[in-house]
Structures are given as C-alpha cells and as structure tokens.
C-alpha cells in the first residue's frame, strides 16, 4: 500500500524525491524502482532470528492472541529485543545519513516493525507513523501499552486504519495529531479477466460451471481464520451440494525461506488439511496457494461470495478487492473494515468464533442471488472510499499539514 502511495505522490508532484529504507537480507544495498530509491538494511543471521522472534511476539501481543502470548516483561527484556532495537537503530542511522545528504522534509515510518525509529531519529523534522495492524485497546495487554506509548510519543502524527483504532490511540494517551485513513488499493490492477484466463483458472482448480464458489483470499496464518470458514463449509455443503471453497494465499515474508525463516504457514496449511479431511469435505475445498494478479482477478470474477474470516484483522483490503468485482462479502466483525459494513446493506458481518452463523449466512446468500447481487452493487459503491486516489489525498493532507 505504501509503495503505490509514494509512487503516486511522486508522479503527481506532491513529493519531489523519495527514499525508502527497509530490511532486505538478500537485496542490494541500493536500488531504484519507479523513481524511488531503495536502501536495504541487512542483518546477520543471529540478529535476524532475534528480530523475527521479537516482531512475532509484538504482533501477537497487538492482536491479543491468547495462546502462547508472552508477557512484555518476557519479550522486552530478552536479548532478542536488543536485536529488534539493533535493526531499528541501523535503519535510523541510514536515514540520518541520507538526511545529511538529501535534507528530507518529512519522515514516514511504516508499521510496528519500525516503531522505535521515530525515537531514534533525533530530529525535530516532522515524523509520521503509519499503523496498519489492529489497534484495539481491549485486545492489547496493559503491560504492552507502556511500551507502545513510549515510542508513539516520538511521532508528530500517527495514522491508523479506521475510526475505532483512532479512539484507542487517543485513550492510550497519545497527544500528537491522530488520524485515520482507510487503507486503499489501486483499482487499475483489478481488471476483468479474459475468457481464457477465466477458463484456465477454473480448469486449474477444478471449478465446474455449476459450482457455487466461496472465495477466501488471505495469507496462511491462524490469525486469518481459514479454519473458521472450513468449519462453516462443513454445514454449507449439507444445503448446497455443489459448492467449493477456494482458499487463496500462502505464507508471509516471515514464512518465506528467504525471510526470517519461520514456517508458520506450512504448519498452518498442514493443520487445515487435517481439518478438511476430518470434516470429510476434501471434494469441496481447494488450497490454491499464491496466485498471480491475473489468476486472482479470475478468482474474484468467478466467486459467488467472498469471505473475510479473520480472527483479528487490521483492515481487510481483500473486501475492497472483492467489491471491485461487485461480489457480496461476509466479513468478520473483528476487522477494521467492519465499520464500513452496513449489515444487509453492502455486506454481512459475523463473529469468527461462531462458524455456524457464517454457515447460515453463506447458505442464505447462495440461495438468494438477487440479495447477493444487491450487496455486491452496494459494496462496489462503498469501495470508492478505499481507492488509491482518496488514499493519496488523505495521506498527503496529513503529511502536508505537518510541513
């Protein structure tokens, strides 16, 4: 999301020059893409592991995952946290060096992996922090709030993804400028697939002409709740015999072999396959893995319903993607995008801890194509609030206000 934002801001002359500092253990030290200069920070393998461990622990804490949740005192006082701090310091030092050469006007720090950078920059020039993951104070353990609060205070402005998170930020005591900007996508990537692309997609994943398709697009992670929709499907197949659940997505950067080397996605996939087998719905579930953009477009086009079943979700841009194809969506009540859903108007909401409700709503929608069509059309109208034009306008306003 941020790269397209930066690209657009450069193209429209809102910014004259842009530099991006990020972790990339395998990339070159410097590269240029679409007018943006990329500066890569790398870590030795031991520090990489420590950084990865801490990043995951913070992510779990923010998402309020009760299982295996480590306390702040366990995480923040371990040597692995020093590695996380080390990565942030390296990034900050690189930025400071670049600032001496380039004299930046504003610093835009992106998400929790880089949270301490604002404190480390040691400059009065404006610093904006973009928070993508959920920010629900009811989920964040109290002992973690102090850690967050200490670093938040270094930023002149913080942007979160929805109104609900904005209230949580203010109640944490953040005294700077707090904004919410709904995440956004560039609709130009989501085009109608050609007939042959559609046919190829259906052939690849065994989708027949008379199949009703329920689509889930999410990386393989327990947080994304694929198990909830699988459990729901076990009930749906009793009402709709010719129904297929297509699960699109694989692991995140953390799970890739070239990333921090974690195998969470593989473990989760294995668990899901076992669940599907146990429920006896192997003929109805397809694990599609990662799809190219054209295949993804075909997946949306062919779907009858899209489901966002996440247990926790910062926002849920897949719903916007689905709405661009005028598809009805059933959305978890725990996603940031839930605040854009009017029940029965432009979508349906469900509690991810209640797969039976999801099953009920899925079956009802599959049985009522007129209602499904209306939800899809209204969803398409709502999607305009989350397109890149609006995103650029609102983010630019925040940044320019500081300058």
């Amino acid at each position, binding site marked *: 999301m941020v790269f397209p934002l930066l690209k657009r801001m450069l193209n429209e002359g809102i910014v004259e020059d842009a530099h991006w500092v990020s972790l990339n253990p395998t990339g070159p030290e410097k590269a240029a893409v679409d007018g943006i200069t990329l500066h890569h920070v790398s870590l030795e393998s031991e520090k990489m592991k420590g950084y990865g461990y801490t990043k995951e622990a913070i992510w779990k804490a923010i998402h309020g995952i009760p299982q295996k949740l480590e306390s702040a005192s366990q995480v923040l006082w371990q*040597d692995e946290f020093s590695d996380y701090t*080390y990565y942030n310091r390296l990034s900050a*030092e690189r930025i400071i060096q670049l600032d001496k050469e380039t004299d930046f006007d504003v610093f835009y720090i992106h998400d929790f992996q880089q949270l301490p950078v604002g404190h480390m920059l*040691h400059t009065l020039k404006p610093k904006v922090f973009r928070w993508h993951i959920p920010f629900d104070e009811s989920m964040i353990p109290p002992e973690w709030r102090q*850690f967050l609060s*200490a670093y938040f205070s270094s930023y002149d402005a913080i942007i979160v993804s929805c109104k609900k998170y904005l209230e949580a930020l203010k109640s944490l005591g953040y005294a700077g400028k707090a904004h919410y900007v709904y995440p956004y996508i560039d609709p130009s990537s989501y085009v109608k697939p050609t007939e042959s692309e559609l046919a190829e997609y259906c052939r690849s994943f065994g989708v027949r002409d008379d199949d009703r398709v329920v689509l889930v697009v999410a990386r393989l992670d327990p947080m994304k709740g694929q198990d909830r929709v699988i459990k729901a499907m076990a009930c749906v197949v009793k009402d709709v015999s010719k129904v297929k659940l297509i699960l699109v997505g694989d692991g995140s950067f953390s799970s890739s072999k070239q990333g921090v080397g974690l195998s969470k996605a593989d473990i989760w996939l294995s668990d899901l396959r076992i669940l599907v087998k146990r429920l006896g719905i192997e003929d109805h579930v397809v694990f599609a893995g990662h799809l190219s953009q054209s295949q993804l477009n075909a997946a949306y086009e062919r779907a009858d319903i899209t489901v966002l079943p996440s247990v926790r979700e910062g926002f849920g841009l897949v719903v916007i993607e689905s709405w661009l194809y005028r598809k009805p969506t059933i959305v978890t009540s725990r996603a940031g995008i839930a605040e854009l859903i009017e029940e029965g108007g432009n979508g349906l909401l469900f509690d991810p801890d209640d797969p039976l409700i999801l099953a009920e709503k899925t079956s009802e929608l599959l049985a009522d194509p007129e209602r499904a069509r209306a939800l899809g059309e209204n969803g398409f109208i709502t999607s305009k609030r989350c397109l890149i034009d609006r995103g650029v306008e609102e983010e630019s306003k925040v940044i320019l206000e500081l300058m």
Partner: protein
Amino acid sequence: MPYPVISYELLYHIVSFLSIILATWVVARVLSTLLGKLLKGVAPLVAVHAKRLIWIFIWLLGVLFALEQLGLRIDVLLLLIGLLGAALLIANREVLQNFASKYFSDVYIPFKVGDTIKVREYSGKVIEINPMSTILITDEEEVVSIPNSIFIRETVVNITPQVWKEVTIPILISGEIDLAEFESETLKSCNKLKLHLDERFPPILTVKNREAKSTELVLTLMIKEPNRKDAIISEINSKVAEIIERMQRKKK
C-alpha cells in the same frame, strides 16, 4: 649633532613591554577560544559575554604588568581595581547566588526539564533551567520564573509521577564506535539487572547530541527500589565503560 643615545636599560623595558602586550594578546585569544568551545551548549549571548569578560580581564592584567615594565607603580591601580571588584560583587550578589545555586541544584536537587515541581506557592512543569532561574509553566499556563537561589533555601517537591523511579545515565562515546552495536550491548547488559528494574519500562537509549567525533547519549531506566539507585547506577556505569573499552579495542 650626535644622535640621542638610548640606553640598554630603556631598550630592555620597551622590549619587555611589547613582549608582554604580545603575550597578552596570544593568551587572550587562546583562552577566549577555549572558553568558546566549553560554552558551546550554552546560549550564544552568554558565551559572547563570558568571552568578552575573559578578554577584558586578561588584557587588564596584561596591560598592568606591561606598564610596570615602564616604571609605573601599579599597586595603587591594583588596589583600586580590587575595590571596584568588591563593589561589583556586593552589587551583584543575588546574581552570583543564582549562578552558584544552579550548580548545587544540578548536583543535589533532583529535578530536570519536564518534571513537575512545587516550591513555595508555585507549582508547574519545568520548561527551562538557566544559570539565573528555573522557568515553570503552571496549569493556568502562566510562566513563573524562580531564581535558582530559592532552591537552596526552600523545600522543593517534585510531584512528577514515578520520578523517583527514573534513572538517567549520561554516556559519551566517540564517533568511531558503532552506535547500533553499542546500544545492543548496553541493552543486553541492562537485561541482566532486570530483577531490580521496573519490567514495564525497558531501558531506552536516547541520542542527545551528535557530532563527528562524539555522541552524547542518555540511558533511561526505571528502578524498583529507591535504595538500590546508587548501586544500579554504579553497576551500569561500570558495564558501559567495559563495553566502550571493548569496542574501542576492537576498532584498533
């Protein structure tokens, strides 16, 4: 007509006079430059005045000694200058008291910019501590200037929440030491003292000032028990010194 004869003695006095004037100029310049470096972090106007005072003082001394070489009696002059100095001291005793109090308050009275304090009938957040006074901003957004000499004579209450827990340790490292590596080692050292520190507030290293040859840092910790404060500071100072030495050796 014969040329006037200048005696060697007179020549000696003239040369001495000129040498002392030259030496005075050199010393005044050197001391002025040194003072300028020492006062780098101070408000420029204060530094300018201080340099000017040193310049005047050195020249005064230099001129007096130079004049003595020419046979002038300077003891009366010195007496007059002494009396003038004493008069100035008496006239400005309050000012000097405030300067001196600033020194003592830095060392003995623990409050800093950002703390909220109560002294006499005033309470507010400290926004500035300068050589003359401490500036507070009250809840009613009034700016109160309290002469530093008050802090030596009156009871001061620091009402900042948990202020007794906060320990700030200033650190100076040379520019050749890798900051990221130093920070990582320092935090790991602090982790070993976790038992005595408030776990809700992990240590944070903050850069205060950065120059090519050195970096000023502050390590902030929150302690559990006030009676262990000195021991914790001492141990951390010792660990930090070890880390710096180790990293400097590695560089060589």
